[in-house]
């Protein structure tokens, strides 16, 4: 009985930690979904730009010993700038209905950013300052890691800020108008290009926070995590339903918990395979995702 109880606590603890860490996947997923909602396109540079933002924050930490809030701020700003650059180089001048060209360009951008980071750091992993990693709360038999709690809090704050911008400001109104019907929005006098650019910057700011959070929760920043993070972000976006923000949040937490569950049982080498299987299960049985409307998804 006590063995079983111990096992049960251990497993639920693992899943719980995963849920907390899943908040970073949720943020990355929100970024993909936001841009998909606005333009109907995938911005493949997104996860790479988010991590590049975290690198900028890390540089501030390493060279001028900036305090943690400044590190996060710089990460967010740098990633926002990269979002704008990605919009200019990969989306702005490519015909709006040519999805594949934009996708291809952003994949080029992904490798470009990734290689720049590899060159700047000689490809070696760097330690990222962890926050509150010595804090531990005890809730009954469970321990809540302070750093993961901080990750969750930051992600919630970021999401709330985003929702505020989207639903309570004129800018958000314009963004939602463009995402619903870009021609109609244009006829109402909304500058579609400017609105799209703003969406990219907003997503980028969020991504920078996510990148820094990921790095701080893992403890290291390495170019090796770019592609896996991109893939996880895409999986979260699809599982949540393309274009759905609540879906991305739910899917991010789901993927985080799911992956830690398999980390516990099958080890780190096989963990990601099960996450990919989860995606295929969704593609077969619920291709529109958790919150997707299904009918009009292309």
């Amino acid at each position: 009985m006590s063995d079983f109880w111990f096992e049960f606590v251990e497993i639920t603890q693992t899943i719980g930690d995963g849920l907390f860490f899943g908040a970073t996947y949720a943020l990355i997923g929100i970024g993909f979904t936001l841009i998909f909602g606005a333009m109907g396109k995938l911005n493949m540079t997104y996860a790479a730009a988010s991590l590049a933002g975290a690198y900028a924050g890390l540089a501030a930490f390493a060279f001028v010993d900036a305090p943690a809030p400044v590190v996060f701020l710089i990460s967010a700003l740098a990633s926002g700038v990269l979002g704008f650059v990605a919009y200019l180089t990969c989306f702005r001048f490519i015909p709006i209905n040519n999805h594949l060209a934009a996708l291809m360009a952003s994949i080029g951008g992904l490798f470009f950013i990734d290689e720049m980071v590899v060159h700047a750091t000689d490809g070696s992993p760097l330690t990222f300052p962890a926050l509150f990693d010595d804090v531990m709360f005890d809730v009954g038999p469970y321990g809540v890691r302070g750093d993961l709690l901080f990750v969750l809090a930051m992600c919630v704050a970021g999401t709330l800020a985003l929702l505020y911008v989207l639903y309570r400001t004129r800018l958000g109104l314009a963004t939602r108008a463009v995402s619903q019907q870009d021609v109609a929005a244009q006829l109402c006098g909304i500058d579609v290009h400017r609105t799209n650019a703003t969406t990219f910057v907003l997503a980028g700011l969020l991504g920078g926070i996510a990148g820094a959070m990921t790095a701080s929760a893992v403890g290291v920043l390495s170019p090796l995590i770019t592609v896996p993070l991109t893939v996880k972000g895409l999986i979260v976006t699809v599982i949540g339903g393309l274009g759905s923000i609540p879906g991305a949040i739910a899917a991010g937490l789901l993927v985080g918990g799911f992956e830690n569950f398999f980390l516990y049982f099958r080890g780190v080498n096989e963990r990601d395979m099960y996450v990919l299987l989860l995606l295929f299960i969704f593609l077969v049985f619920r291709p529109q995702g958790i919150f997707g409307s299904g009918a009009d998804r292309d």
Partner: protein
Amino acid sequence: MSYYLGLAQLIGIHTLLGLSAYVLMLTGQLSLGQAGFFAIGAYCAGILTVIFELHIVPALLIAALLAAFFAFLVGFPALRVKGLMLVVATIAFGEFVRLFFFNLSWRVPRDGIHVGPDSTNGFREIRYFVANGWSAWEITLFVWTFVLLVMAALWWTDRSRAGAVLRAVGEDELAAQSVGLSLTTVKVTAMTAGGFIAGVGGALYAHTATYVDHLTFTVLLATFAISYPILGGLSSVFGTLVAVIFIQGVLVEGLRFMGDWRSIVFGLLIVVAMNLKPSGLFDARTARLLRRAVGLRGGEKSRA
């Protein structure tokens, strides 16, 4: 000389990889999973010649059929989703295959040593060509026989009704459906054919490289696969070949003096190319201009 032969083999293999994406793109599907089928072909053919000691030709065909079978399987769920969702699904498939081989360990004793895939250490003993005393010339000839066979088959398909069917689905799914074409059949067939071609390419790659590991088959390889037909355009199979020669021969080899900075150029090149020519560097218009420039010689008829 062996350097140029090696380059010729590489160009041949990458042409197969590019053509596997080309077939899919004719039907309007973009797959970032071609590296996965390539990996299945590579590992399967390697296992067949090393562990089961098969001759290379049956090994290659079995490997390609296996890759085609998996492409067929992936085709069905992936076709419930379209466009960008398909891209995500195929990226996920490619990563899944890579992680599978990352974890696969199948070592058997042979002549006193253990051979076979060794999970993270890769698969090191695919020495069929060396063991059977093939010269570099013979290997190159072998590779290009398959490249030319596949190119001829695709070229011929393109001129038959099947090619028109593929392109009809690619141009306008609704219109294709209303003239009675089954979208599922056409797309799954294209997917399967693409898997087969990638499988052949992978099998040849494993044997020319003699060593494969999971890091070969990343999203970067899948990006190479789709960038060939995108750069080369979809007007004919030769576009893909030209793009492979351009990227592998001119860019990758020609920019060797830049050292590690080459891979940065690759990303930048894609971004610039897509901005300047969103529908491919050698799209129909450029091809027509080129043909006019060389004096309209040769059979390539312009497609209406």
